């Protein structure tokens, strides 16, 4: 307990941001408990009600409560972007470590594919993949996963190559350690800190990309309460009913700002290079 308090005192910014993220997650998880109006309840009589009264953020074209949809939207945004970040981290790390450790054909194949994906604007491919596979939140996640793992694989590979030919690795090999054991015991711990920091600061970007795909109609499908999709649906009516566009956009910004700040402060704490500056 005392050590925790010391940590909080030392890294105030990080502690505050973690608390905010915790609050976000709590809001999202507990939404069904305290939100009385369902985000999917439509009532055409109540369509396009302005903000205020019973509907804090107004209602949309089907009379659904925008406040409730924005809060429920956080559930989808948080789960899909966390899922995406973890998958990218996992895929990139596994491919990068195996490529770096084993070298040879595996290395060539993985790295040539990575080169190919990097020498190409990622968003174009993500749009094509998500669009062709059909609109769904899962397909949007897969599309961005396909174009984003390369950064992590390259990073993991370069970190593995730094220690690949160290004496202690050869010592482990001579004493009969299995490859899998070496990968787990020496390689993984070596690459994880850097990769986790990178992943943490990428959550915000991932969220924006997912929302972007949904906005284009290649992500979440109606009637799902998802922020990008809500902006897409509200776009047509925004001249007369601007609240359809204002609130979901604000929600994205707030969440992305919090995650970006958290990523930055995590990097400040963990990245030794920043301490000297």
């Amino acid at each position, binding site marked *: 307990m005392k050590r925790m308090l010391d940590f909080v005192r030392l890294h105030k910014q990080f502690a505050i941001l973690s608390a905010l993220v915790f609050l976000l997650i709590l809001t999202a998880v507990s939404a069904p408990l305290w939100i009385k109006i369902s985000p999917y309840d439509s009532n055409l009589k109540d369509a396009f009600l302005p903000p205020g009264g019973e509907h804090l953020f107004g209602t949309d074209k089907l009379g659904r409560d925008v406040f409730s949809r924005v809060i429920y939207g956080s559930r989808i945004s948080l789960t899909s972007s966390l899922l995406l970040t973890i998958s990218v981290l996992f895929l990139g790390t596994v491919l990068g470590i195996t490529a770096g450790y084993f070298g040879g054909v595996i290395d060539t194949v993985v790295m040539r594919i990575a080169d190919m994906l990097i020498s*190409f*604007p990622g*968003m174009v491919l993500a749009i094509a993949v998500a*669009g062709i*596979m*059909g609109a769904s939140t899962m397909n949007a996640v897969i599309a961005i996963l396909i174009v984003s793992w390369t950064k992590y694989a390259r990073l993991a590979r370069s970190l593995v190559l730094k220690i690949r030919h160290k004496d202690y690795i050869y010592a482990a090999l001579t004493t009969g350690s299995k490859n899998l054991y070496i990968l787990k015991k020496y390689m993984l711990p070596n690459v994880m800190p850097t990769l986790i920091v990178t992943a943490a600061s990428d959550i915000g970007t991932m969220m924006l990309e997912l929302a*972007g795909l949904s906005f284009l109609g290649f992500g979440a499908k109606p009637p799902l309460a998802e922020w*990008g999709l809500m902006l897409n649906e509200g776009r047509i009516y925004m*001249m007369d009913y601007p609240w359809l566009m204002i609130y979901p956009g604000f929600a994205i910004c707030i969440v992305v700002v919090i995650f970006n700040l958290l990523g930055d402060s995590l990097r400040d704490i963990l990245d030794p290079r920043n301490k000297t500056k």
Partner: protein
Amino acid sequence: MNVKQLTTRLMQAIIVLLGISLMTFMLTYLAPGDPVRTMYAASGVMPDKETLEKTREAMGLNEPFMIQYFKWLSSSLQGDFGTSYSMNKPVASILMSRIGPTLWLAFFSLILMLLISVPAGLLAAVRQNRFTDYFVRGISFLGLSIPNFWVGLLLVYFVAFKLGLFPVVSMGAGIDKMVLPAVTLAFAMSAKYTRQVRAAVLEELNQDYVNGARSRGLKEKTILIRHVFPNALLPLITLIGLSLGSLLGGTAVVEVIFSYPGLGSLAVSAITAYDYPLIQAYVLWIAFLYMLINLIVDLSYGFLDPRIREGRKIYEKNA
């Protein structure tokens, strides 16, 4: 870059383009949706099953994957990208008519971005850890966290609709129709770029030659403009190349918001309509443009950086 390096680069580019073309072709091959039906749906009649099957046969859609791919590849290399299913026009001519507007938009927003981010980044670096620095960093942080499609929507609502300064829909030519889309694109990019300008300038400010110049009594302004800035410029040129490339992909969202008649909005409607020839050609074109830009950037290094230029002369003399 000498001839040997250039050949290697070109070979690499060709391999990547082949890989990309194979990948997109595979994607469209595996994709759901029946192109024959799409084609007939666009013309307004839905024929019986037998005619559908005949058309499929005539279009070569029943042949094995690799044969289809090589046929498509060889005709693409001759400039024939097939016929668009949904618009019933040759893909090449549709693309040609859309490439101009997108390139103009990308170019315009790039200029705008440079006009914002270079002075801002310079200023932040010179005033490091003072109010101006924090201010610039704060704004650029926000710029990175706000989705560009939302910025676009806000601009449409407040500037175009409420204030009536610009047209809401950016159809047709004219610079006034390009302003809002370009501002939207420049907004997020400037945020990123300002940070990089700041970092690059700070890096140069810590070099010994700056101390040397100071001790010789040169004015801060002279040091900054004559010595620091040209040196900081070099890494930034790579970034311009990269951002021009990502612009080509990133314009899609903005083009859709402003109904701008460029490549991005074309791609989105092509994907929605399962218009495979159009999608394939679009992806290939973007890949090609992107690689061309990166190659030009790499080549420009040789001209811009005297260290590389002189180094090559010495190398060639000794070789």
